[in-house]
């Protein structure tokens, strides 16, 4: 089991490359999710504020 | 013409205009866009490279790779099946470098017509295969050759009896 796992991590000697390619992708895509969801929430907050002020903006 | 139809024509002609401009531009700079020259292009003398650094691309000739003992230096021939160029290189070769593989060498020609490369890039082909599949393909190829050989022998066999 451990042998299989360390071999899996080793990736034929391409460990650095394979894991950093997947890592960068996961990082950027995670960041995209976070930013987009935050932006949607902020837009809702903007609308809420606008209408609670009685449309002063 | 309705305003909408007019806008449609405008948008389409803008795209067409840019497409034509791009086509002409790319055609005009065709030679500069070429990422590398083939040995045939070099042999024909159609390009003047003087002392310029250029890229030469082709397949590494089987059996041509000579390594200098105890050093990183390597000398090999690159071919496009018609002409070939001798390349000398001193440095670390990429993972995909091997005989029969496509490579691109970046450097300049010395006075003896040997291409002194300071960078070697390996060109990967578009085929992806599992090792077992590659093995079975090689096996099939070998058997096909054997069969051809046998057939040739059988064909010429009776002739030798005379």
């Amino acid at each position, binding site marked *: 089991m451990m042998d299989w796992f360390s071999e899996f991590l080793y990736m034929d000697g391409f460990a650095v490359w394979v894991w950093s390619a997947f890592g*960068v992708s996961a990082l950027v895509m995670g960041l*995209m999710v976070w930013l*987009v969801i935050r932006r*949607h929430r902020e837009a*809702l907050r903007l609308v809420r504020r606008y209408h609670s002020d009685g449309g002063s903006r | 013409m309705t305003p909408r139809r007019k806008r449609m024509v405008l948008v389409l002609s803008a*795209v067409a205009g840019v497409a034509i401009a791009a086509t002409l531009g790319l055609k005009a700079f065709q030679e500069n866009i070429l990422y590398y020259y083939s040995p045939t292009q070099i042999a024909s003398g159609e390009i003047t490279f003087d002392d310029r650094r250029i890229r030469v691309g082709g397949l590494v000739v089987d059996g041509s790779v000579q390594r200098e003992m105890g050093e990183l230096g390597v000398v090999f021939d690159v071919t496009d099946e018609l002409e070939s160029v001798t390349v000398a290189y001193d440095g670390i070769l990429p993972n995909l470098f091997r005989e029969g593989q496509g490579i691109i060498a970046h450097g300049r020609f010395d006075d003896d017509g040997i291409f002194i490369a300071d960078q070697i890039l390996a060109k990967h082909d578009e*085929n*992806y295969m*599992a*090792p077992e599949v590659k093995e079975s393909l090689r096996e099939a190829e070998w058997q096909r050759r054997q069969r051809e050989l046998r057939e040739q022998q059988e064909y010429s066999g009776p002739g030798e009896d005379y």
Partner: protein
Amino acid sequence: MGKESWRWFHRFGSPPHVYGLADRMVPWFAILGLACLLTATVWGLAFAPPDYEQGDGFRMIYVHVPAAWLSLFVYVLLALASAIGLIWRMKVAHAVAIAAAPLGAAFTFLSLATGSIWGQPMWGTWWTWDPRLTSQLILLFLYIGFIVLNRAFQDQRSGDRASALLGVVGVVNVPIIHFSVDWWHSLHQPATIAKFGAPSIDTAMLIPLLVMALGYKLFFAWLLLRQLQAELLQRERRAAWTKALVTGPGGTVK
């Protein structure tokens, strides 16, 4: 087109309709997309066979190729939305284009970054001015230019029209990227799958790649809808429908 299909088309011009539709579709895209991404990652990393030449290094294909495909797909979508926005003066179409642009830019960046990480060990260089790489970099600049141009005007409508024009004419770059590997000598390999004839890749390697590509598409659809919703809310913050959205039945703000 008949009257019926035009009505269908015009409903997409209605922000509240699109907003509600997006709300209903988002969970599906999110769940299915993440499921595909997870499945394909495990499959591609652990169960697909290694390549005969690149060994396990080829597994980078599973993040590089879907990102590259999507970067082109998103651009075509952006250009179509821009054209519809210009020709039919449809506000929602402009909102779709500007909602898609940052996502497309992110996928273009990912295709360049993962390609670079693959290129260093395999080709022997992080970057080179190869036609495919150069045209893909231009795509990134087109996305950035689109966003900057859209936000450069005080008036949203002028910004929409200016950026839409750039978006539409920029579509010329898409076939250049795709065919660059066939038209010129190039370091980048020609197409493996998107070509005439059978794909030159093992089925056992291809299936996880297709699942991954589907996952990327669904992931994009999810984020696009959320981006679009945010864009519509911002643009229509004065409209009655956004008020109805944030106020309860009694008219008080939630």
